[in-house]
């Protein structure tokens, strides 16, 4: 909110929401806090303290969106970023957490009903900033400094467990970021109030009434009576904060297994530089793939701009690939549209989808002198050696798909349908689903078909000698075609099993099309059809004539 109202920084300001019978304070800024205004107060009470209090309505929905954006931005530090919207959801099971950083945006504290925050699992990420504890301290400093530059006031804390970090970030009395030493979080959280354990309000209130004001009071108590009296949650929270119970951070997005990042001392902006950096990232990632024996199906490139916005782009491949140059070619097209803005300070490349890389890649159907070899199932694929031709074609298809879109690079396969517009289905090229010779077989039991089928049949006016006869001439697109030869009809009945055709209609008056291949005086050949109820004279107004295609 403070980002939107710069002048607020100097004022005593608060956000209000309407609940529990009147306007109440939802969040406050630093000046208001020092004036004694607290979240949860009635607005009237706050006004008595500070008469010229500046207020605005809280917007939880847009605040959550902002938090989402921030979470995306935090992926520069770790893929394990979770949004902690209202004081922590229950998180059970998972792995051991060595370190967790908790970031609380103070203004976000204001905007998120006092509790909104982000959780980052930064296990093993500190080394990117320095060695050991120094690296972690640098990471934390970098995080708050960058957030401050973008106008956010953040309180960050890092500790061995997510629970401890959460408590320290929100309740610790301090001025600066807090980094709990390894295994030192127990002592640090002991003086904090019980609310720091992420408890619900009633439990916290009961504890207070019993004189258990801080976490330290709970630590020496036997667990069994505690859990009997206050339920499982308290004990679990306590164990999670101490690290004796595991807690995982559920990442906002699935964390990619393969990832490389490249930070720049100076922001880069030239397209050549970005391309060169992408190429370096790719080389590193392909090395990772090589070790793991996998290939990429989908890669995502994130460009972190200096102004805090993130530009993302992705490429996909038809077959798992770890071919550096090929993947780089795929990136060329999206990179040409990327906008570096004021400069890019960090680039990250992650593999969103990988598949086992088979050096004996399955061969596409290919022909030797007109005779088509075909791969059927996995048994045949083992016998065929990897073909460089196929790799070339697959890579070509990948490039085309990248530019034209998946739906626009296809292979055509026959579909079991009488209706001509439904008889062809487009399949992804990488799937060798069409058996060689299948088309010839399918075409053999069908009548003549046009070389081009119009996407939309065009209505024509026809003239026939007799009511039941096919037309002798027709008018199409303003020109008259006198017919010399007529071949047909080929009757195609509506497929009643399709949703668009009702069964009642089929039973009362079966409808369908009578197709004719016709040739006019000039030798032009068309594919016409008569639409309407069958077994009725062709001149009835119910039957209409259409051009559906051009024949060879």
């Amino acid at each position, binding site marked *: 909110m403070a980002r939107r109202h710069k002048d607020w920084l100097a004022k005593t300001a608060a956000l209000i929401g309407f609940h529990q019978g009147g306007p109440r304070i939802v969040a406050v800024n630093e000046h208001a806090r020092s004036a004694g205004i607290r979240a949860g107060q009635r607005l009237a009470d706050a006004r008595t303290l500070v008469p010229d209090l500046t207020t605005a309505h809280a917007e939880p929905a847009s605040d959550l969106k902002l938090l989402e954006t921030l979470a995306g931005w935090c992926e520069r530090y770790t893929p394990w970023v979770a949004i902690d919207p209202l004081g922590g959801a229950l998180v059970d099971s998972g792995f051991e957490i060595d370190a967790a950083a908790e970031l609380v945006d103070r203004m976000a504290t204001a905007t998120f009903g006092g509790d909104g925050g982000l959780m980052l699992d930064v296990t093993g990420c500190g080394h990117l900033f320095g060695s050991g504890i120094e690296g972690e301290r640098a990471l934390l400093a970098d995080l708050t400094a960058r957030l401050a530059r973008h106008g956010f006031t953040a309180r960050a804390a890092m500790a061995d467990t997510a629970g401890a970090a959460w408590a320290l970030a929100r309740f610790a009395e301090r001025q600066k970021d807090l980094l709990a030493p390894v295994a030192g979080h127990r002592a640090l959280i002991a003086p904090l109030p019980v609310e720091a354990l992420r408890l619900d309000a009633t439990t916290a209130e009961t504890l207070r009434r019993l004189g258990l004001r801080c976490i330290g009071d709970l630590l020496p108590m036997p667990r069994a009576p505690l859990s009997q009296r206050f339920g499982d949650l308290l004990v679990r929270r306590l164990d999670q904060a101490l690290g004796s119970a595991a807690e995982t951070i559920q990442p906002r997005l699935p964390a990619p297994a393969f990832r490389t990042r490249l930070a720049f001392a100076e922001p880069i902006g030239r397209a050549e530089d970005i391309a060169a950096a992408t190429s370096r990232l790719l080389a590193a990632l392909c090395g990772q793939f090589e070790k793991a024996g996998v290939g990429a199906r989908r890669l995502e490139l994130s460009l972190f701009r200096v102004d805090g916005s993130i530009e993302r782009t992705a490429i996909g491949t038809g077959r798992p690939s770890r071919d550096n140059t090929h993947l780089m070619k795929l990136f060329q097209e999206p990179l040409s549209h990327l906008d570096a803005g004021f400069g890019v300070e960090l680039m990250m490349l992650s593999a969103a989808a990988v598949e086992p890389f088979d050096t004996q890649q399955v061969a*596409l159907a*290919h*022909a*030797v*002198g*007109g005779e*088509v070899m075909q791969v059927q199932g996995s048994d045949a694929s083992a016998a065929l050696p990897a073909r*460089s*031709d*196929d790799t*070339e*074609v697959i890579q*070509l*298809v990948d*490039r*085309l798909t990248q530019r*034209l879109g998946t739906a*626009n*690079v*296809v*292979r*055509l*396969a*026959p579909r079991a349908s009488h209706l*001509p517009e439904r*008889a*062809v289905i*487009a399949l992804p*090229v990488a799937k060798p689903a*069409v*058996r*060689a*010779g299948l*088309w*010839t077989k*399918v*075409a053999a039991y069908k009548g*003549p*078909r*046009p*070389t*081009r*089928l*119009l*996407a939309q049949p065009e209505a024509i006016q026809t003239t026939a000698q007799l009511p039941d006869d096919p037309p002798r001439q027709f008018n199409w697109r303003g020109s008259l075609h006198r017919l*010399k*030869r*007529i*071949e047909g009809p080929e009757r195609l009945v509506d497929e009643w099993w399709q949703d668009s055709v009702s069964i009642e209609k089929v039973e009362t008056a079966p409808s369908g099309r009578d197709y004719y291949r016709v*040739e006019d*005086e*000039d*030798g*032009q*050949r*068309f594919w016409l059809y008569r639409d309407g109820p069958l077994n009725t004279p062709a001149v009835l107004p119910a039957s209409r004539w259409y051009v559906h*295609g*051009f*024949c*060879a």
Partner: protein
Amino acid sequence: MTIIFPNAFAPSSASRDDAPVLVLDRAEPGREDELRRLRETVRRIERGSVASTAPSIPLDVPEIDAVLPDGGLAGGALHEIVPGDAAHDGAALGFTATVLGRIAAARRGQILWIHRQAGALTAPPYAPALAAFIDPARVILASSRRVEDALWTMEEGLRCGAIAAVVGEIDKVELAATRRLQLAAEKSGVPALLLRVAEKKSAAISAAVTRWRVTSAPSRSRLGADGESLDDIGGLRWRLDLLRNRFGDPARTETPSWLVEWTNEKGHLAVVSETVSRPHGAPAQRLAG
């Protein structure tokens, strides 16, 4: 500026034996080799620095192959097919598929078919009908709305040596674009077909090696058991005009033109004699209409 290509050595067919330079003693093997080398040199001089070594693809129609240099469609080159007018699109597509069928038999690999979804060509070729000419399973169909994308796709395909042929159905193609396609085809040896739409102007400038105009012609009448000609459509007939034949016989002034017939049963193209051949006993007035 008119460019005249010295081409006396180019055709190897027997029809060129009357040219004075080619009167040679066939019995001498040394001279044969020398002649071949000489032809290759001339070819290189004629066709620029990137002389494609891709073998030419005969259409298996002796009359047409005799007119084409090296007895067939040049391998790594751009060929254009133009329908007589918009309504003859079906025939042009049929001829394109026929040519593709010849290429597919001669070369291995996939066929890349690029279709621009705009203008007159709103629908892609219909695979069940293509099946008579080529196996549609070998075709990779790429569609695009923008001309630049379609041309880029063609060029990418032509650069990939593993592709059997590249076909483009693109309406607006500039001279520079055809030159790029021609160069890409020369380099990789992949034949390229460009199916254009009928133009109002006589002939667009293009860097293509050949340009064919295809017009549908009345089909052959089939005779019933009683000798009466039937109402149905017999062999498909097209009028082919070879509007442009770069590296062809420069002495030839008139545009070569053939009436060809495609028979589905035999699966090949044949030139039909232009003289009206009426089966014995068939009534003349039926043919006259």
